[in-house]
């Protein structure tokens, strides 16, 4: 049962990253590359009818995590308190940036909300990357000082950073050079992903330029990913042991690289959706590889006193998890239907949706 819900949550999280990821990416592109009103309209039309439903995946992941792994939910949400609340604030700015911009036609008003949308999207991509970094790196569970737990063994609290920005000290921070690297990978990967979505869903004048942007950023992404692989062992002495023990898991790293190498051909794709497909492969592969590399841990402990949190020691009891399968199955089918309807109605190019026009 635990394994089932673990897979469900990882799958839902991946869907969230793929879907809201293109919104964040669109925001980053909007911030750096949208110069004219037409460019901006094209970008917001491409995500306008979707972003809200995409964000629901985050809420749903939170809910299912609460239900299936209450101890993990309690431990990680209170331990990562500050960045999580800041993510909430950024999500507010992203949302009102998109929703309020069109309410008043005034240059200054529009500039304010354009920037709010763009900057919030950029920071969200960064924060989610950093969050992933924190999970692989692990935390000081039980807040051990001098070999003694100062809290219950599954609770902790991390400040935003420590003075050394090192991932290897006893008292860690959210942001250190390792997690920051993953944050930057998040920004670059989602910028590529967002650009691909815009190319896919619009006939914007921006598209030719965006293909070049994707092509160039793809080199950066490849370099960053290789760099992270080379230094991974500093964080985790045996980073590939799961892949060696269970060879079929190599499919995930394979997907990651298939995504990157596919994108080098971005300029010659005939179908406009191809780029998006490859960046989706990259995100699925990258996220899954990272998460399974620490399996069965879900939050490793960095001290020798308290054990890591695994999917087995944080789960709810069997009865609840079993009942959940029934309603979840119904809900999953319904969600599938909604998504089918939604993407069916807004299929093809979306330049004429008229998002934010009153």
């Amino acid at each position, binding site marked *: 049962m635990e394994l089932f819900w673990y897979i469900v949550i990882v799958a839902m999280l991946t869907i969230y990253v793929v879907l809201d990821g293109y919104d964040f990416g669109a925001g980053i592109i909007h911030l750096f590359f949208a110069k004219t009103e037409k460019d901006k309209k094209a970008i917001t039309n491409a995500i306008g009818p979707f972003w809200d439903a995409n964000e629901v995946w985050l809420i749903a992941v939170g809910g299912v995590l609460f239900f299936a792994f209450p101890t993990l939910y309690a431990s*990680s949400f209170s331990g990562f308190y500050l960045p999580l609340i800041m993510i909430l604030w950024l999500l507010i700015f992203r949302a009102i940036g998109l929703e309020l911009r069109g309410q008043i036609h005034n240059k200054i008003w529009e500039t304010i909300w354009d920037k709010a949308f763009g900057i919030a999207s950029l920071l969200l991509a960064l924060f989610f990357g950093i969050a992933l970094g924190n999970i692989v790196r692990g935390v000081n569970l039980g807040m051990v000082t001098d070999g003694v737990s100062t809290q219950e063994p599954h609770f902790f609290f991390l400040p935003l950073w420590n003075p050394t920005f090192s991932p290897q000290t006893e008292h860690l921070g959210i942001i250190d050079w390792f997690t920051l690297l993953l944050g930057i990978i998040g920004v670059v990967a989602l910028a590529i992903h967002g650009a691909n979505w815009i190319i896919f869903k619009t006939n914007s004048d921006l598209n030719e330029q965006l293909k070049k942007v994707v092509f160039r950023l793809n080199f950066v992404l490849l370099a960053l990913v290789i760099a992270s692989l080379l230094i991974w062992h500093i964080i985790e002495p045996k980073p590939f042991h799961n892949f060696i023990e269970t060879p079929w898991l190599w499919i995930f790293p394979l997907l990651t690289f298939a995504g990157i190498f596919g994108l080098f051909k971005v300029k010659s794709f005939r179908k406009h959706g191809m780029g998006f497909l490859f960046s989706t492969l990259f995100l699925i592969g990258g996220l899954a590889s990272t998460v399974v590399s620490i399996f069965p841990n879900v939050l490793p402990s960095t001290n020798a006193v308290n054990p890591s949190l695994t999917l087995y020691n944080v789960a709810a009891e069997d009865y609840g998890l079993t009942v959940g399968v029934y309603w979840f199955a119904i809900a999953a089918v319904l969600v599938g239907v909604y998504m089918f309807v939604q993407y069916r109605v807004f299929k093809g190019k979306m330049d004429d949706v008229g998002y934010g026009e009153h």
Partner: protein
Amino acid sequence: MEDMLFYDRMQFAFTITFHYLFPQLTMGLSLMIVFFKWKFLRTKIDKYNDAAKFWMKIFALNFAMGVVTGIPMEFQFGTNWAKFSELTGGVIGQTLAMEGMFSFFLESSFLGLFLFGEKLLGQKLHFLTGFLVFLGSWASGYLIIATHSWMQYPVGYEILENGKFVLNNFGALFSNPWLLPAFLHNQMGSVVTSSFVVAAVGAFYLLNNKHSDFGKLFVKTGVIFGLISSVLLAFPTGDWMAKNVAEHQPVTFAAMEGIFETEEGGAEIILFGQPDVENKKLDNKIAVPNILSFLTYQKWDAEIKGLNEFDESVYPTNIPGVYYAYHIMVGLGTIFIGLMLIASVQLFRKKLYKTKWVLWTLMFMLPFPYIANTTGWYTAELGRQPWLVYNLLKTADGISPTVSSGNTLFTLLGFIGLYLLLGLLFLMLAGKIINKGPETTKIN
């Protein structure tokens, strides 16, 4: 430790109070928009479609505010109430996860279609998407109140040795006797809010001599919906709720009603007065004899236990708070029924659109349903304190053990600043939409 609990409670109270200003309008207004759209489909009169479209603009803005202030609510269970989440997640995680899966996806997927899909979908499907948004928002209310009901009246659980609550009967979460009355009462409260908002905007147009056709339609619709919902709010739903509290939380009931002494021959109903908890009496009392006994048990002389019958250790934490919240809610609810009755009589006599004082009153009543809904929730929540899970888990034992009070104050201040900004923006933009008024289009 004291500080940690205080700031955690303040942050939750502040963020939930602000948040719920929006969903109460979302739930009620979605019903009224579906009504306008349905009238349009039936009568083919464009005015109804224009009305639906006008309210959709307010709805979209309001919905966005509800969503962005709602996500922090779900996260705060974990961030600020980690111990509570750890101990009860196996039970209330069910209903909270179901809310995400069953209602938020429904609402958000079809809201996009409802707002941007009228041309693509055609009128009938457009109506259907509106209906699904309504269904999603009410389902969300239902599942949240299922969660709330479990905290008020825990069912279907057992407690393990390590203190964790474990679900052992899924069905019990939904057959909880607290759930149905609380849900219906809450939904009527939200229809009252939307009715008063629609009527107030209509009155504004009529008094302004602008958009008078829409003014009449909004006042009429608001008054009819308002009369029905404010009556249902009191009876049977409010009555049923009060009886539930009297039965399952008698000490909270005594605090709500402000009854200190148990009176022989039946309890009076308190209309006015200030509880003096230190000296266990009510100052400046205005009361009507025997009514409370009758309302609660349909017997004029039924006994209702006063606070003095209970040990102080089981008192609600803030008795005056519970008492005032409840009395403000009930007082306002009574005024709502009275005003809507008068307005309905004038409507029936075809004089409402010219009865200026009623129109002015309708316009100025706009904030009060929000106050009534808020104080109603305060009654329920303060009435349960000091418990998170009634009689089983103390609020003080539910907070996050590792989040210091300084960190919570930091985020509380952030929320206050940010929500102040959101509130100002909402009022400004809603005011702009209302002042501009509905646009007329020709479809038929």
